[in-house]
């Protein structure tokens, strides 16, 4: 018995004596909502991975708060009059983490790697590039197969990340285990599902604006626990705060909340032409789908589920985006009109629809609100909560009539629309196909100025919004909570966390 007491006393003493020692180095700890995938810019594909990349891998270009494209590792670019060549001047005196210089050769290597590596997820993004030429030691020229205006936007993301040719050549497809890029921080270690540690790169081209010595990324999946870590001082900032936790953050004097409207959207994909499940009045008659949209009150969804913190929307870009089509405002809820449309289409009695919803507390809540709203117009939605991986496969196979799904968003509107709206495109799960929409998208890709492109997208909106496969519902907010020790943080609309310029008090 005495021994037991002794052990208990020892345990108590240990617990009481445990305290984390503060280090003199400034160390920023960031809580992520998921564990990132492989840290190879060519092979990576998750949103959370992009957050880590923004600390270790600089890109040719970046975006600013207004979504304008600004130079990063490039100094500038020039597109030829016919839009078929893009010449990019590189920033001089840029070094990779292994000391190698960023030359035109290295830039060509990185782009060629994106274009040719087996399993490269970047290839479809920059498939318009036919070849990369070295013009002089600091200039490259991209020869395009056809004019492609979203190209520069692609180079603000992973496709524009430059890797050290020496390290990439040595590591092959294992490069992601120890990435060597030209970003403000260099990779130190990664413990799978536990942490990713990076430290300040002494030879960074913009080192005067880096005020943090070390950054640790900690994936903490549970949002309550993530927030608890921030509140207890175990973390300095967290991403993807729940809309329902906003009040807790605002009420805490030691925390700050920073937000921006996301580039992506949440919406309902409808099955028009994918397998036997499309063979219903809903899949075949646009009036029935219009009736469904008219039964929804987007503002109420936002109020009920997200305390009004998100932004209701009806297009693939949010209402603050320069490409938003003002001529197509958010339709008001109109049950009478919805019922009339259903009657016109010859639908009598409640129309039963299979509503696939990926599992999650927020998605389930949205689905239930949609269900009760649509019921008033005469739709009987059968919510089928499905595990995420399964839902992707079933969407592909046409095993749905309605599918609640989001898109994380890209800075160019093309990235939010082309793959969903054109005939046979990979994300077009409801199989919408309209030659005019395809032609308008091709036009938007070929034109480079905003007015011309916006005009092309107007055609898309006119055809796709009333007849298409997606009812866009809302745009989430990028919600980042910070401890009051963190200063100088700026949120860009892409949701990524940029540590350059951040100071720790």
């Amino acid at each position: 018995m005495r021994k037991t007491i002794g052990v208990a006393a020892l345990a108590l003493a240990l617990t009481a004596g445990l305290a984390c020692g503060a280090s003199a180095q400034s160390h920023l700890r960031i809580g992520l909502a998921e564990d990132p995938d492989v840290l190879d810019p060519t092979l990576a594909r998750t949103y959370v991975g992009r957050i880590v990349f923004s600390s270790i891998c600089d890109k040719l270009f970046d975006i600013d708060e207004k979504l304008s494209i600004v130079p990063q590792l490039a100094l500038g670019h020039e597109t030829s009059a016919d839009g078929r060549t893009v010449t990019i001047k590189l920033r001089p005196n840029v070094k990779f983490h292994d000391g190698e210089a960023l030359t035109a050769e290295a830039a060509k290597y990185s782009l060629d790697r994106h274009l040719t590596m087996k399993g490269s997820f970047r290839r479809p993004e920059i498939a318009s590039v036919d070849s990369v030429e070295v013009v002089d030691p600091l200039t490259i020229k991209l020869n395009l197969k056809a004019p492609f205006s979203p190209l520069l936007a692609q180079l603000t993301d992973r496709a524009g990340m430059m890797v050290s040719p020496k390290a990439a050549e040595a590591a092959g497809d294992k490069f992601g285990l120890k990435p060597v890029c030209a970003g403000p921080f260099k990779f130190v270690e990664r413990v799978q599902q536990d942490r990713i540690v990076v430290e300040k790169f002494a030879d960074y081209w913009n080192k005067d604006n880096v005020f943090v010595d070390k950054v640790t990324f900690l994936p903490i999946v549970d949002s309550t626990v993530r927030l608890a870590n921030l509140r207890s001082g175990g973390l300095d900032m967290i991403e993807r705060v729940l809309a329902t936790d906003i009040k807790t953050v605002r009420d805490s004097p030691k925390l700050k909340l920073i937000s921006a409207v996301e580039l992506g959207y949440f919406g309902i994909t409808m099955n028009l032409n994918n397998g036997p499940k499309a063979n219903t009045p809903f899949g075949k008659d646009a009036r029935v789908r219009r009736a469904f949209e008219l039964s929804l009150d987007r503002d109420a969804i936002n109020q009920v589920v997200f305390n009004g913190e998100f932004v209701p929307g009806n297009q693939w870009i949010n209402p603050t985006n320069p490409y938003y089509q003002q001529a197509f405002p958010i339709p008001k809820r109109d049950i009478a009109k919805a019922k009339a449309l259903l009657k016109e289409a010859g639908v009598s009695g409640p129309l039963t629809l299979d509503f696939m919803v990926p599992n999650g507390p927020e998605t389930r809540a949205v689905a239930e609100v949609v269900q009760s709203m649509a019921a008033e117009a005469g739709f009987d939605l059968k919510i089928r909560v499905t595990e995420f991986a399964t839902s992707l496969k079933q969407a592909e196979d046409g095993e749905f009539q309605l599918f609640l799904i989001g898109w994380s968003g890209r800075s160019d509107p093309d990235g939010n629309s082309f793959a969903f709206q054109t005939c046979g495109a990979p994300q077009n799960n409801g199989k919408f196909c309209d030659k005019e929409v395809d032609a308008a998208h091709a036009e938007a890709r070929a034109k480079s100025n905003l007015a011309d492109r916006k005009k092309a997208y107007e055609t898309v909106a006119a055809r796709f919004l009333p007849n298409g496969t997606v009812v866009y519902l809302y745009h989430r907010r990028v919600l980042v909570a910070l401890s009051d020790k963190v200063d100088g943080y700026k949120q860009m609309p892409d949701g990524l966390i940029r540590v350059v310029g951040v100071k720790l008090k």
Partner: protein
Amino acid sequence: MLAFLTQRVLQIIPTLILVSMLIFGLQQLLPGDPALIMAGEERDPQVLEEIREQYRLNEPIPIQYLYWMKGVLSGNLGESMRLKSSVASLVAEKLPVTLQLAGMAILVALGIGIPAGIVSAVKKDTAWDYGANIFALWGISTPNFWLGILMIFLFSVTLGWLPASGYVRLGEDWRASLATTVMPAFVLGNAIAAILMRHTRSAMLQAMSADYVRTARAKGLYERRVVLKHALRNAMTPVITLGALEFGTLLSGAVLTEQIFTIPGFGKLIVDAVFNRDYAVVQGVVLVTATTYIVLNLLADIAYVLVNPRLRG
């Protein structure tokens, strides 16, 4: 003894083959397409096809199985599709974490469960007994994730004594390591303590009414000596067996607790792998834990035979 050992070791081989087929077969039943989930938002048909080719997802399942077995037999557990690192290195990275957490949890369980069981048996039908029983009922019926979150709020957010989550390796800083694991170990140990307490109590009650205990008392021994030396020793056998079994279960990873406290052990590894349809990781981890379990079982059998010669033959 040698014949017994040979026989038992030989029995392991068909068991392991069966286990490996089960693991492989069962996860093929999971709906979803590994290439599609791996591609995530970047679904390009050509890239998807390359992934399927690279990981032999287009081959018939028996062929995929044979490829996997060929690798396993030559010591290669395969490669994680999601992380591009070898499954063996992932397992090696997680094993010490899981061992530490399981070890601490079982210590908590024994430290609480056995004394509570003894007290409630010795002081049967008193307030002590009721108190211990209420504790056991609470321990069994409180969900791990709930207790975990409550503890985080109390000890990390409100009192600020312990880090809310995360993990530090023992070798790196043992004090910080204990600080990060003490709460999850308590959460895990607490549930097991309740079970151990109930078993200790009933075994003790049985022992306390045995003849040898009456004899010991008749000899005029102190009650404490009777309880701890004569009754407890005899009552411990089923409790130790149970404890060993629970330890085995802990080794396969504590899914919810690891998720709440962000402990990077087997539980988190396997959950992420299942959600991402990272087949090689699921197969590797399950195979390793199944093998550990079987080996532990074998060791237990050998121990029984050593202790009890009547089992030989």
